[in-house]
């Protein structure tokens, strides 16, 4: 096989950019390694041996090139489902390029392919080509199951079926997310998320094609349908529309309940600026249908009686919003993090210019920093802050369940528990369950109690502890929103905590904590 000459000039400026410019060597030639200045220091010379100089200590990372080949072709073997061109996308070389067999880039390619999660093993080797100096790059892969359970959550919660219910019901719920990470062998991720319970049901499908546009920008699509209930108020006074058989007129109930259906579509893109920094930009369209809600409701807030704002329009309404997220991820390990930083800043804006029935702006940012202590324990600091402005629909407002660990967090943006968390500090936060201003700071400490280096079974068990302080308020009264409180209790803030065990296993990270058991207790 003979390759046209122009291919050589392309290659010298592409993948193998360490090639000397205009080098006249022929394929297979040995290239002289630049001799390093070995120094004339007499003491260094004294302790030189065949392996270097003793004073260099830990210096094993010098690499140089000595042989160049020309790449005749790339052959992918062992792939049954994954398309060969999908594998080739990971190789920073093309036919006709000069190939440096010592290039760290080629070693990294092996790891990068393993990092996709599509393969049990990846071996890259060279074989002689048709002519001297030419080689074939053989990528041998062994495929693995690419359907993975990304998330599995379950618990017990208390809720009310409708506003007129006289008692709360204890009900189990189950949420999960399953992903096919290599759909049709093209590297496409297809995820399905679902929540099943007596009071809330929902599903979501997400399709993500990494690096579709110019091999840089990913494209994402999502669609969802939710059938949920939102619980408002602490023993509110409600007025249910009369004419209904259950119409009680006006009475005090456990919660005012809004039954709704919400369906929508999302399309977005994203790009990695660096291996640590990336952004995403999504358009989200929601159609919300309120099926049932009290005609009016009010609740006691300290010494006052205030109307409940359901933060949703009657009947059917449309929410059209743009969401921009910036993520800086410098964690050593996304599963059981021991050190690093994770920052996430999100801006969501809904406007009538996009056809939305709601004009709002929601800002949120959170940062977490982990430190590995010298004795192998991990210390973590976390901070979260968020604000919502304008007529924000309830599902984009901040929920107390997302700030505390003492009741279940929302799943698929659906509220799972109608209970208020315990008011440990006895502040005015007992009146707040939904707010426009939210913050939280927390401290975590992890102790590894079991560690084993192996591919299967249980690898690590961590005892984790966490304590935090959080606040939730409305913008109009962030400091002392509720009358009837004095001193520090005016400030709507409270404590949260959790402790338990985190199990790192072959199939993922599982967490069993105090908060998991809260469904069984009366708060």
């Amino acid at each position, binding site marked *: 096989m003979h390759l046209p000459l122009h291919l050589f000039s392309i290659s010298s400026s592409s993948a193998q950019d360490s090639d000397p410019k205009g080098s006249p060597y022929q394929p297979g030639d040995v290239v002289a390694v630049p*001799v390093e200045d070995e120094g004339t220091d007499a003491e260094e010379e004294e302790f030189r*041996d065949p*392996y*270097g100089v*003793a004073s260099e200590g830990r210096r094993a990372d010098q690499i140089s090139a000595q042989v160049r080949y020309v790449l005749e072709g790339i052959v992918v073997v062992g792939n049954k489902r994954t398309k060969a061109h999908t594998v080739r996308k990971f190789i920073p070389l093309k036919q006709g390029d000069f190939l440096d067999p*010592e290039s760290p880039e080629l070693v990294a390619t092996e790891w990068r392919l*393993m990092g996709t999660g599509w393969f049990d093993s990846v071996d890259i080797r060279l074989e002689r080509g048709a002519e001297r100096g030419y080689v074939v790059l053989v990528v041998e892969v062994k495929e693995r199951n690419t359907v993975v359970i990304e998330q599995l959550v379950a618990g017990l919660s208390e809720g009310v079926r409708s506003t007129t219910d006289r008692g709360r019901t204890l009900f189990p719920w189950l949420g999960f997310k399953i992903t096919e990470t290599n759909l049709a062998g093209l590297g496409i991720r297809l995820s399905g998320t679902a929540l099943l319970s007596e009071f809330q049901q929902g599903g979501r499908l997400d399709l993500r094609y*990494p690096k579709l546009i110019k091999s840089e920008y990913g494209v994402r699509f999502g669609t969802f349908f939710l059938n949920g209930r939102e619980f408002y108020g602490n023993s509110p006074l409600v007025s249910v529309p009369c004419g209904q058989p259950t119409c009680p007129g006006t009475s005090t109930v456990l919660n005012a309940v809004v039954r709704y259906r919400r369906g929508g579509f999302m399309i977005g893109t994203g790009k990695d600026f660096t291996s640590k920094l990336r952004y995403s930009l999504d358009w989200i369209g929601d159609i919300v249908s309120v099926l049932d809600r009290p005609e009016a409701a009010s609740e006691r807030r300290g010494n006052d009686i205030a109307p409940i704002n359901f933060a949703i329009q009657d009947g059917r309404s449309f929410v059209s919003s743009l969401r921009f997220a910036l993520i800086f991820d410098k964690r050593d390990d996304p599963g059981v993090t021991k050190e690093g930083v994770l920052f996430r800043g999100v801006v969501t804006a809904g406007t009538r210019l996009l056809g939305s029935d709601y004009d709002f702006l929601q800002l949120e940012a959170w940062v977490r920093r982990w430190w590995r202590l010298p004795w192998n324990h991990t210390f973590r600091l976390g901070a979260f802050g968020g604000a919502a402005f304008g007529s924000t629909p309830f599902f984009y407002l901040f929920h107390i369940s997302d700030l505390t660990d003492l009741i279940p967090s929302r799943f698929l943006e659906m509220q799972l528990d109608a209970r208020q968390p315990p008011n440990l500090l006895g502040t005015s936060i007992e009146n707040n369950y939904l707010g426009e201003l939210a913050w939280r700071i927390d401290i975590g400490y992890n102790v590894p109690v079991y560690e084993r280096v192996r591919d299967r079974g249980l690898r690590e068990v961590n005892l984790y502890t966490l304590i935090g302080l959080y606040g939730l308020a409305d913008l109009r009264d962030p400091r002392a929103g509720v009358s009837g409180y004095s001193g520090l209790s005016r400030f709507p803030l409270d404590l949260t905590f959790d402790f338990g065990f985190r199990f790192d296993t072959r199939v993922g990270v599982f967490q069993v904590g105090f908060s998991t058991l809260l469904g069984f207790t009366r708060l």
Partner: protein
Amino acid sequence: MRLWLAALVLLTATVAYAQSQLPQRDFGVTWSRGAPKVSFSAKDLADARVRQELSSGLRKRLVVTVSSHLKSSNWQMAVRQFGCDVTLDLWDDDYLVRIGSRSERLDTLEQVLDRCLSVQGLFAGEPKSYEPQKGREMYFVVKVEFNPISKKQCSELIRPTSGNDPVGPITINIVRRRICRADRTVEFRSEALKVPE
């Protein structure tokens, strides 16, 4: 302060226990002007898989790390590391071996393994590391790795490139264990010996 001290003691004890579990091997140790020169063999690192990989035509790396420790406290006195890059030249049918800035060509894989893993006369540190410990008992620990991955490379590879979930997808955890450690590692220690007076 007491807590810190207790933690330090616990850490020291853990390290001591781990190192005491390492298998012992024969070491040749000579002292040259106050610095130890060690000789040992770690050729058992090269199992069938390693040998096959070394003949893949791509650069493969063997990294040898020798550290010296006080027997009483396990305190590390000195550390020495060298890397051995091995590339089979497919067309000349010999191996290019590079240690530090020196390169040579060897005809067979056995010669390569002798050169990289049968270590002869390696200075395990400088005299200044041993002078304060004259007369005390010490031992050497050797770690030999095939294709180790650096911590930085590892964390970049396992980082999720998309998605908002702070706890990454489960696949990330599965591959992490495979790509974040050397393909094969052998560790052993020497018998205790005294730092010469």
